[in-house]
């Protein structure tokens, strides 16, 4: 390969020849190969990162092509798993790198096993719901690997670096896992919001991996490209609580323990799936119901449960985190439907 390949990046003084070598010696885990995962994986592959492990449970759909930059029409036509389609595109971009692609619904055991088997330098968030981010947060602090949160919805996006031993964790930022949050499925998304978040995550990755660690942005950065607003918000150091179950003095990593794994069970002979999501506190049913109504779903509720109907699917949600999804016998489809309404 041409010696010239990384010359423009090496000419950037903070990276230089030694930073480039460090990038080559790095291994990054990208969880989720959707819009953000596409963006960061491509940038890091072009930048010469030596190894990328990428995980995704989904396949390419036509509605992805507007913003998920690793995929083309043929991938949607063939309904290829995203991890597979991503790996093949990344290989075309940079044949010198190692790419491990995993088609899986990343649970605690999967994540722990990956982190035990590989020497991962950094984890990039390309996921689309909060339950898995609390899991990544626990895994990152347990294995002392930094992770870069990124998320977007509409024209809005946010990025935050979580560095074990240096910054507070996701738990400290959001003590309760949000019951509802802004996502792409129903609220929509424009590609520039994705690219902005992916660009900021990738810049943090280049800093960390090339040895420019004092340059890390430890603020919560948030923007809205439509209303032209931007904030770079300091995290109150005192907010780090000694009692935090993830980054405190005696961590228990609650989302990593098997008791809190997402459980799915298809009901015999019926097109229904039971789901049990790990929650450390009761679900705010009222907030979920309000949110679903705003999204034009048909909603019925009482103090004990909420029912959300959309087409042939019906979600029945209980306060303790249990849910029944009618209209499918596929646990993955049931989870995706659940996560449209509950983060």
């Amino acid at each position: 390969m041409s010696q010239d390949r990384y010359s423009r990046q090496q000419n950037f003084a903070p990276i230089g020849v030694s930073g480039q070598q460090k990038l080559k010696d790095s291994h990054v885990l990208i969880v989720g190969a959707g819009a953000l995962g596409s963006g960061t994986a491509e940038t890091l592959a072009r930048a010469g990162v030596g190894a990328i492990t990428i995980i995704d449970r989904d396949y390419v759909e036509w509605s992805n092509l507007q913003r998920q930059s690793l995929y083309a029409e043929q991938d949607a036509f063939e309904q290829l798993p995203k991890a597979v389609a991503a790996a093949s595109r990344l290989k075309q971009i940079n044949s010198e790198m190692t790419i491990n692609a995993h088609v899986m619904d990343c649970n605690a055991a999967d994540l722990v096993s990956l982190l035990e088997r590989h020497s991962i330098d950094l984890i990039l968030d390309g996921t689309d719901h909060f339950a898995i981010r609390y899991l990544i947060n626990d895994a990152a602090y347990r294995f002392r690997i930094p992770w870069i949160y990124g998320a977007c919805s509409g024209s809005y996006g946010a990025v935050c670096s979580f560095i074990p031993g240096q910054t507070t964790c996701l738990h400290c930022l959001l003590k309760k896992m949000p019951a509802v949050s802004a996502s792409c499925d129903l609220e929509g998304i424009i590609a520039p919001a994705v690219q902005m978040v992916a660009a900021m995550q990738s810049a943090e990755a280049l800093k960390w991996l090339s040895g420019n660690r004092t340059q890390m942005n430890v603020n919560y950065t948030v923007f809205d490209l439509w209303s032209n607003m931007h904030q770079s918000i300091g995290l109150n150091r005192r907010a780090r609580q000694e009692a935090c179950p993830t980054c405190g003095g005696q961590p228990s990593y609650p989302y990593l323990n098997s008791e809190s794994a997402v459980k799915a069970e298809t009901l015999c002979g019926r097109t229904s799936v039971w789901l049990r999501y790990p929650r450390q506190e009761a679900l705010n049913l009222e907030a979920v119901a309000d949110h679903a109504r705003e999204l034009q779903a048909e909603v019925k509720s009482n103090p004990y449960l909420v029912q959300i109907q959309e087409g042939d699917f019906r979600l029945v949600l209980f306060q303790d985190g249990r849910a029944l999804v009618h209209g499918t016998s596929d646990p993955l489809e049931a989870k995706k439907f659940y996560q449209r309404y509950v983060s």
Partner: protein
Amino acid sequence: MKILCFAHLSEQIGSPSLELELGPMTVASFVEEFKSRYPNARLDQVMIAVNEQFVEEDHLIGANDTVALLPPVSGG
């Protein structure tokens, strides 16, 4: 007091930013006041930053401060 309303809040309030004659007041009383003025605004779990710092509920917001209301975001 300047209020910046991110994501769905700007639609619920009708504008991404507001100037209100408020303060000094605590974050907790600001939230109550805001809810009563804008009953359509969904403030559950919204993160609150004052002058680009995350603050606790008892933090005192000054009359000339900028308050950012940030819904949690999960898409990707």
